[in-house]
C-alpha cells in the first residue's frame, strides 16, 4: 500500500520583494503628486491589488484606492499600471517586469481626488447622456421580448462592459478634450443602437453625431488595448460612425 502512494510535487512559489512606485496625492497634505516607493514581498501569482492591500494594511494606511469585488466584475480598481490602464485585480505580478519598480498611477483625464482615486462623475455623465437603457416601442408584450441569436450577436460584445473607465481614460482625445463622450459611453450607445428590441437608435445616433461625439475618435486603439473585458471598442465606435454615414442600423 505504501509503495503506491505518490506524493504530488507541489510547485514551490517563492515570495520576492517587489518595488511598487505609487503616485501619491493627499489633498490635505500635498500640493502636488509625487512618487512613493514601497517594497512588498509578493508571490508571482499575486495581483497588484494584493500589493496595494498589503501596503495599506501593513506599511501606510493613508494609501487610498477603490476596490469592491476584487475579481474583475465591479470595475472599481482601474488604474495605470506600468503606463497602461489595467484593473489591479486582474493584473498578476508574474505578468509584469518585477525586476524594475512597478508604477501605479491614477487613471488620466478625470479630476484626481486622492492617491489612486479620481472623480468618476464626468465619466458617468457622458454615459447617462447616450440613454443607456432599452427604449421599446408599441405595447408592452405579454411575454419576453424575443430576439434571435444572430440579432443578439451583433451587440453582444458591448454587453460585457463593467464601466471601469479603463478605455475612456486611455484615450488621448479624452485627456485633452473633456467634452468628448469617450469610448465607454459610445460602447453603451452601440449596445442599444444595434439591439433589435430597441427603437431609440435614431435618438442616440443624433446625440453622437456631434463634434464631441463619435467623430472625435482618432482610432488610436488605446481603448481596445486597455479594456479588461476584451471588448473591441474601436470596432464598435467605427460601426456607430458607419451607421451615421450610411444610416443603416
Amino acid at each position, binding site marked *: 500500500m505504501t509503495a503506491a502512494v505518490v506524493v504530488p510535487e507541489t510547485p514551490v512559489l517563492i515570495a520576492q520583494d517587489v518595488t511598487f512606485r505609487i503616485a501619491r496625492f493627499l489633498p490635505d497634505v500635498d500640493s502636488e503628486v509625487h512618487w512613493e516607493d514601497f517594497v512588498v514581498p509578493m508571490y508571482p501569482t499575486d495581483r497588484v491589488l494584493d500589493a496595494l492591500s498589503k501596503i495599506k494594511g501593513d506599511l501606510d494606511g493613508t494609501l487610498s484606492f477603490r476596490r469592491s469585488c476584487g475579481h474583475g466584475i465591479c470595475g472599481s480598481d482601474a488604474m495605470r499600471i506600468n503606463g*497602461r490602464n489595467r484593473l489591479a485585480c486582474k493584473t498578476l505580478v508574474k505578468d509584469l517586469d518585477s525586476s524594475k519598480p512597478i508604477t501605479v498611477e491614477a487613471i488620466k483625464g478625470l479630476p484626481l481626488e486622492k492617491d489612486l482615486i479620481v472623480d468618476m*462623475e464626468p465619466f458617468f455623465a457622458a454615459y447617462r447622456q447616450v440613454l443607456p437603457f432599452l427604449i421599446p416601442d408599441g405595447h408592452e408584450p405579454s411575454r419576453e421580448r424575443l430576439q434571435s441569436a444572430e440579432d443578439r450577436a451583433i451587440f453582444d460584445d458591448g454587453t460585457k462592459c463593467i464601466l471601469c473607465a479603463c478605455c475612456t481614460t486611455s484615450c488621448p482625445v479624452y485627456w485633452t478634450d473633456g467634452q468628448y463622450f469617450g469610448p465607454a459611453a459610445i460602447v453603451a450607445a452601440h449596445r442599444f443602437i444595434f439591439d433589435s428590441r430597441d427603437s431609440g437608435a435614431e435618438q442616440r445616433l443624433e446625440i453622437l453625431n456631434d463634434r464631441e461625439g463619435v467623430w472625435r475618435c482618432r*482610432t488610436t*486603439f488605446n481603448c481596445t*488595448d486597455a479594456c479588461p473585458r476584451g471588448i473591441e471598442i474601436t470596432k464598435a465606435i*467605427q460601426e456607430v460612425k458607419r451607421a451615421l454615414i450610411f444610416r443603416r442600423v
Partner: protein
Amino acid sequence: MPGMPEVTTVDVASSTANLEAGVAKSFGTLYRGGEGMWTWVLQRVTGVAVFFFLFVHVLDTALVRVSPTAYNSVIASYKTPIVNLLEVGLVGAVLYHALNGLRVILVDFWSKGPRLQRQMTWVIAAVWVVVMVPGIFFMLKHTVETIFGSTS
C-alpha cells in the same frame, strides 16, 4: 451620489481646482500605447512637418512673381547637402502620412479594418521601407558624389 447633487457639484469644483493648481501638470509616466497610438502621433507630427514645408514652398514659389532674380538666389541656396537631407525627410514624411492615411481610411470604412489595424501598420511600415531604400539611394547619390567624389 444619488440624491446629493449639490454635494457632488462642490466636490467636482474643488477637485477641478486641485487639477488646475498643478496636479495634472504632466506628472507621471508616458502612456504606453500600442501601434495605434504611435501611428497617430506620427501622423500628427508628419502632418505638421509637411504643412510647414508647404508654407515655405508657397512663399518661395510666389517669389518668382516678385523678382525672378530673388527667386533664383533662393532656389540656389537650397542646393546644399543639408537641404538634400531635409528633402529625404520630406519624402519620408509625405510617404508615411499618405500610407497611414490609407490605413486610417480602411479602419474607418472597411468593416474588417479595426481588427486588422495592427497588421496594416506593419504592411505600411514594410511599404515605406521598400520605397525609401531606393529613394534615399537615388536622392542622396548626387550629394554623396559631390562630397566624396564619383566612383565612375
